[in-house]
């Protein structure tokens, strides 16, 4: 699998929040073993999707100078499953800083019903140490459905 767990960014405000979408499809290889005859998106990957969305918030908000590495999950509570065919609406909100870590509250919901709620903390790092910042900027344009897609085809 490509370890990209955000398909689209639908709204954001630098330093405050970001909203996005993760589509769950039966062709995801992680559903083969999680679980046989009972495919559900792993809860840890819902946390990963929220953490990646927080990364995009950090990246886009800093002109792709900074990124985030997840260090703590203070709590994550699961209310139900994200199933093949579900579109998971993701939202992360910045919730301050503590001990040098950025704090976030994240919610993953399907059809308006929450599936996971997570409080987590991540460390800001220089993006260029981990990814090519220009590549990351181009990926963000794809997530935002900006260039290179012709406007008439959206």
């Amino acid at each position, binding site marked *: 699998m490509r*370890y990209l767990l955000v398909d689209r960014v639908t709204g954001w405000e630098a330093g405050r929040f970001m909203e996005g979408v993760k589509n769950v499809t039966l062709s995801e290889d992680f559903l083969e073993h999680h679980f046989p005859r009972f495919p559900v998106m792993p809860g840890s990957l819902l946390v990963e999707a929220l953490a990646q969305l927080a990364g995009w918030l950090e990246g886009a908000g800093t002109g792709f100078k900074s990124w985030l590495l997840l260090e703590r999950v203070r*709590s994550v509570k699961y209310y139900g499953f994200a199933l093949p065919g579900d579109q998971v609406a993701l939202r992360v909100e910045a919730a301050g800083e503590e001990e040098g870590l950025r704090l976030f509250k994240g919610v993953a919901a399907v059809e308006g019903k929450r599936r996971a709620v997570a409080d987590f903390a991540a460390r800001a790092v220089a993006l260029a140490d981990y990814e090519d910042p220009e590549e990351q900027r181009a990926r963000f344009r794809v997530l935002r459905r900006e260039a290179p897609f012709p406007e008439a085809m959206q």
Partner: protein
Amino acid sequence: MRFLFFDRVLEAEAGKRIRAVKTFPLSEPFLAGHYARAPRVPGTLLLEAMCQAAGWLVLYSYGYEVACVISLAENVRLAPGLRPGAAVEIAGEILDTNKRATLARARVEERGEVIASAERLIFPHFPSANPAELERRFRAYGWLDGLPAQEPSRQPAEEKG
């Protein structure tokens, strides 16, 4: 990727504890993009490894008559800098259990140092549809059939010397 986060079970004691090993070779597909310039094991997959070890311990403890999923994880610390080539040991421990749910904790160690931990993991139980199949999978995944009778020389911490 195969979403299985232990390579071998070293020890399982029903109702009490489990120890397993997991290695992270550079060939893991998730390391290709996480990250392009600096492959690092995603912290959430360490959480997954802890949940899988503790979850299988629940199934093993109840003779595979129950299955379980995670409903809550609290006070989880993750190592964001784990590099390819790491061999970690995952330890899960049941703190409390009844017919309806299990409370567990878990940790991940690399070379004897704790690099990740989860203080509280809650697993609601539900009836297992096919206990024999669960047992077959656990033994197939976890090498339980070939589990030596706790020979210290076979344990990875010893092998690393």
